[in-house]
């Protein structure tokens, strides 16, 4: 693994913007009358309604997995998988995850390309209380899919200590790429970086709110071509962990994590299929 020094990089949002721009706006809840009409959990969240933009999502071919009961809301394993050929003309373009009971419902937005090979993504998230978690996937053909999962949280995640991250900023990026992945078989990639993911909601020892400081973007390219990208919100656990896939082809994988301060750290790894 080669670790390049943290560098400041300019605005490279273009890849993400088309999907994520939709998420950034809007109040949290619908007004009372429409709330009464809402039949499904996702219809109760403004951000999800805007994302769906009037389309009727399908609830098949998508799976959202979290434990039924979590004893620690500060780090709950979450994975989403979507049935998709991940071919050039039919692939999952984005997967958005929401926590209906968190102070801010957005958890993460993932952008995929056919180069990912498989629409399976996993991370660890903060859940403030027992709630419904929602995943929405959009395919390149414009189809929307949605899955929900009710999770019982016995110890709240958002206001508690931030795991054990003693990291101040971007620290210790780790990547695991299988040594000789089989061509034609999407390879599973793991990444982890030490970072406090300060929510901005937590008080420090002096009683003052600790300012928000998060890793807001993670990008993966294979020889310059986008493979996978994640936009992260405060509800991603300290020390962001991400699992996703890449279709093996010889080349250089470049991973980058960007903080909301603009600070970036990069790692490169060679992909060397069998």
């Amino acid at each position, binding site marked *: 693994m080669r670790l390049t020094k943290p560098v400041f990089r300019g605005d490279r949002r273009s890849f993400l913007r088309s999907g994520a721009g939709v998420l950034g706006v809007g109040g949290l809840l619908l007004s009372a009358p429409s709330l009464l009409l809402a039949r499904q959990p996702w219809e109760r969240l403004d951000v999800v309604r805007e994302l769906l933009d009037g389309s009727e999502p399908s609830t098949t071919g998508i799976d959202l997995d979290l434990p039924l009961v979590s004893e620690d809301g500060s780090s709950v394993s979450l994975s989403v998988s979507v049935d998709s050929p991940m071919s050039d003309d039919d692939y999952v373009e984005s997967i958005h995850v929401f926590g209906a009971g968190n102070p801010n419902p957005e958890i993460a937005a993932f952008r995929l390309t056919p180069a990912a090979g498989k629409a399976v993504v996993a991370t660890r998230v903060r859940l403030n209380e027992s709630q419904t978690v929602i995943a929405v996937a959009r395919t390149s053909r414009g189809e929307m899919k949605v899955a929900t999962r009710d999770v019982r949280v016995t110890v709240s995640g958002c206001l508690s200590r931030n*795991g054990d991250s003693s990291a101040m900023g971007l620290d210790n990026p780790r990547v695991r790429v299988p040594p000789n992945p089989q061509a034609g078989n999407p390879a599973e990639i793991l990444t982890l970086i030490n970072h406090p993911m300060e929510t901005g909601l937590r008080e420090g020892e002096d009683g003052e709110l600790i300012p928000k400081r998060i890793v807001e973007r993670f990008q993966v390219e294979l020889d310059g071509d986008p493979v996978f990208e994640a936009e992260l919100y405060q509800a991603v656990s300290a020390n962001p962990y991400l699992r996703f896939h890449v279709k093996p082809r010889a080349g250089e994988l470049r991973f980058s994590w960007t903080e909301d301060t603009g600070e970036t750290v990069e790692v490169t790894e060679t992909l060397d299929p069998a």
Partner: protein
Amino acid sequence: MKHFITNRRETLKLLGATGAVAALGSWGVPAWSNGGPGHVVVVGGGFGGATAAKYLKRYNPALQVTLVEPVERFYTCPFTNLYLGGLREFESVGHDYRELKDRYGVNVLHTTAQDIDAAAHTVTLGDGSTLRYDRLVLSPGIEIRWDALEGYGEDAAEKAPHAWKAGEQTLLLKRQLEAMDDGGVFILSAPANPFRCPPGPYERVSMVAHYLKTHKPRSKVLLLDSKDGFSKQGLFMDGWAEVYGDMIEWVSLSDDGRVVRVDADRLEVETEFGERHQAGVLNVVPPQKAGWIADRAGVTDESGWVPIKPATFESTQVSDIYVVGDATVAAPMPKSGFVANAQAKVAAMAIVSSLAEREMPPASWANTCYSIIAPGYGISVAGVYSVQDGAIAEVEGSGGISPRDADPDFRRREAEHAVGWYNAICQDTWGTRPA
């Protein structure tokens, strides 16, 4: 009748407020419980099962109670860490079933329950015979998930013991510690939640460090964790630094502490991001689920554990089957012996009430988990739980944790309380007194 109802509530409140070994020890038989006898079968004679059998008979001596437990002598997990540390003899954690048989008239069958037919209300025993029940209590404890950690099957546990069920595994781990070279590394791999005894791995490494400090001071202890935090973390870490200097190193999930592969022949483990660690002694505390008989009864859910109705501990999936102890989903109550004992009393009361067609009074539970960091150095965490909005929750402002800045005298007294707790709960559960 009204008189009795208030009385019952009062008594149950008392039970709830303390979870209490002592309070219950002096609690007589409720006068209303004579009606509605029946046959209750209890599977498992550990903390939950032995307590359930005894308290069913105490609440209604007219009940016929059969306890199914393969072993004639039960070794508790609590205090096996002290055995590993050299603070106790192994036999001191052994208990038998004489009180249940002789004093309470429980029919104790030393065999395994092989199958359960919930529709027919029958339990099939090891010899193929069947028992019919009106109500069934399961307290089978945990099962290791032998397929959850690459390289860690039953054979591997003969080389890299879990010692998470007391018995041969505990003795094996002790022998390995004694055979380890001075300067070797003891590695413990700790699982993600939920698992039996949340503070257990941390007490385990404390006691191992005590043994090593005394006998093999150049050795190291490496704790590879699948979590970013753990029970009584601050207290443990303070204690480790104070007593053992830098002998114990804890590697969290986010520092690549999660073990994903075990090579038991080479005593080597590999973590998620590809780090390999070589052990002198390798103690793998693997992922767990409810004891297998719970699957046969159809009471487990996709998590592998048993969801229960909080007020009674009856299965949410199969009626007339009550499940207590580690096998259940009862968070935020921890999977502890103390909790299994307290849950068993509530289930026993629920069964006696339901057979007598009485309403079950509201219950609550208490727990204290003591841990020993070194001889004369104890810490604890306590909580009181009740049913709130249909779910188990910790009573706000209840319980607490040992202070971080306590003096040595305080720590010494907590270590003494731990022994008092152990003697009391074993007496309450099996009727055995310390030798």
